[in-house]
């Protein structure tokens, strides 16, 4: 047995009890399935907005209940695991992190839902529409937040602290993108107050993407927490 100081604590290492292994594997599997679903929701929502695809936007709204169902399942399964197996240390941290990851994914899914709703409201494309003017920024932010979310979920899948830290590092970049897009879209409402409503909607869409990046960051923090590293340690490493 290795008595060295822990560098990385991996809750996916096998236990003596196969029931514990099954519980841990089940929790992780469902969190990853939920992650994949939310990644898909975010990508589809952005696509529906950029390409004015009402059908796709409808599909995003229809699938949101599945996201919610996953969150409830993770909540229930974690609680059962804690009650029946009395996990400690990295197993306990995993049980808590899974609940939190579920919550973050559910919120990211909500942002996707809001973006899809916005896409549906834009049935008549207007050349002066601010959302078209910031199309490039929107795509850019969508690419960045989407990639952060994918990497956060992948970090949870592969228990990869480096990948998790990479997500944390990119959050500032996304914030800067948001600030730049905000300046651009605000210039529209200053030109003509008729653009007020679409401008606000566009800002909400941009803010949604920025929030998705925050949720990805929080998921990455939970991955580090599961592995016994807090953010300060992660920053120092």
């Amino acid at each position, binding site marked *: *047995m*290795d*008595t*060295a*100081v*822990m560098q990385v*604590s991996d809750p996916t*290492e*096998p*236990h*003596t*009890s196969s029931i*514990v292994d099954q519980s841990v594997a089940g929790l992780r599997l469902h969190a990853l399935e939920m992650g994949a679903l939310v990644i898909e929701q975010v990508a589809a929502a952005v696509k529906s907005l950029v390409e004015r695809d009402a059908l796709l936007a409808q599909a995003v709204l229809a699938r949101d209940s599945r996201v919610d169902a996953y969150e409830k399942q993770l909540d229930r399964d974690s609680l059962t695991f804690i009650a029946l197996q*009395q*996990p*400690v*240390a*990295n*197993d*306990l*941290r995993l049980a808590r992190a899974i609940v939190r990851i579920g919550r973050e994914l559910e919120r990211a899914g909500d942002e996707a839902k809001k973006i899809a709703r916005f896409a549906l409201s834009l049935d008549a494309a207007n050349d002066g529409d601010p959302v078209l003017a910031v199309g490039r920024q929107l795509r850019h932010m969508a690419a960045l937040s989407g990639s952060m979310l994918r990497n956060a979920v992948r970090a949870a899948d592969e228990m990869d602290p480096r990948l998790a830290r990479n997500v944390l590092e990119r959050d500032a970049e996304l914030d800067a993108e948001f600030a730049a897009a905000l300046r651009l879209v605000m210039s529209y409402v200053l030109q003509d107050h008729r653009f007020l409503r679409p401008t606000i909607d566009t800002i909400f869409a941009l803010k949604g993407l920025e929030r998705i990046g925050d949720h990805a960051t929080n998921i990455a923090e939970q991955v580090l927490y599961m592995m*016994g590293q807090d953010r300060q340690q992660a920053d120092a490493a």
Partner: protein
Amino acid sequence: MNTTLAEKAATPTFSIVMEERKAATVSSAKAVAAKLDFWYGTNQALKNINLSIVENHVTALIGPSGCGKSTFLRCFNRMHDLQADTKYSGSIMLHPENINLVGKEVDPIEVRMRIGMVFQKPNPFPKTVFENVAYGLRLRGFNSRTELAERVEKALRAAAIWDEVKDRLNDSALALSGGQMQRLCIARALATEPEILLFDEPTSALDPIATAKIEELITELRQRVTILIVTHNMQQAARVSDFTAFMYLGELVEVDATSKIFTNPSKKATEDYITGRYG
């Protein structure tokens, strides 16, 4: 009665109480093991153990069978002296007098008066309830009937068994239930007012209700006595102890606050053991 906790916290008396409580929890070491080695013949069972036992707190010793936790516990009251061909080196200093508990010059009988022990299986003497508790007191020279009665009652109350046996003091202790017998053994250990109480898996032979009573008792007792407990039940260590020490192959691997050990231990070996990944 509608004051919130925040409002209460803002009142001076509340903060004074909290300050006092904080001051009271700053404790010193009751006993300190330093470079402690122990041999059964040529077999070294303890290797260079350095551990402070904090006064009026519960320290739990955990680890797989054969890791040396019971051996370590038994050093405190010199139980090993009853066996031939055993050897100590290093020290366990008892504070505040700085007596080396494992020193050759120290009388084991005197050590056992100051350091009580409760075993895995309840082992009352085949005597009455009263005589079980009075036994150690008589050894210490207490003969007055009234004083004995007083001290026996005090010990039985402290062990949370008085109400159950006060009308059966002259019945045989062997007629009690397992949980009652174990609490009687705790009363017997408490009667001589020891400074440290050693528990060697005190609940492994008891049902969950009796176990809960003993655990509750341990939590109460730590206000007056320093407690060291060996347990195979990880949840028990988590529930009753303030500090947890993990031992493996005769060595102390890690000791820390129990809340730290069971949420985020520093050593991988500790985490592997408490999460059931050992071996």
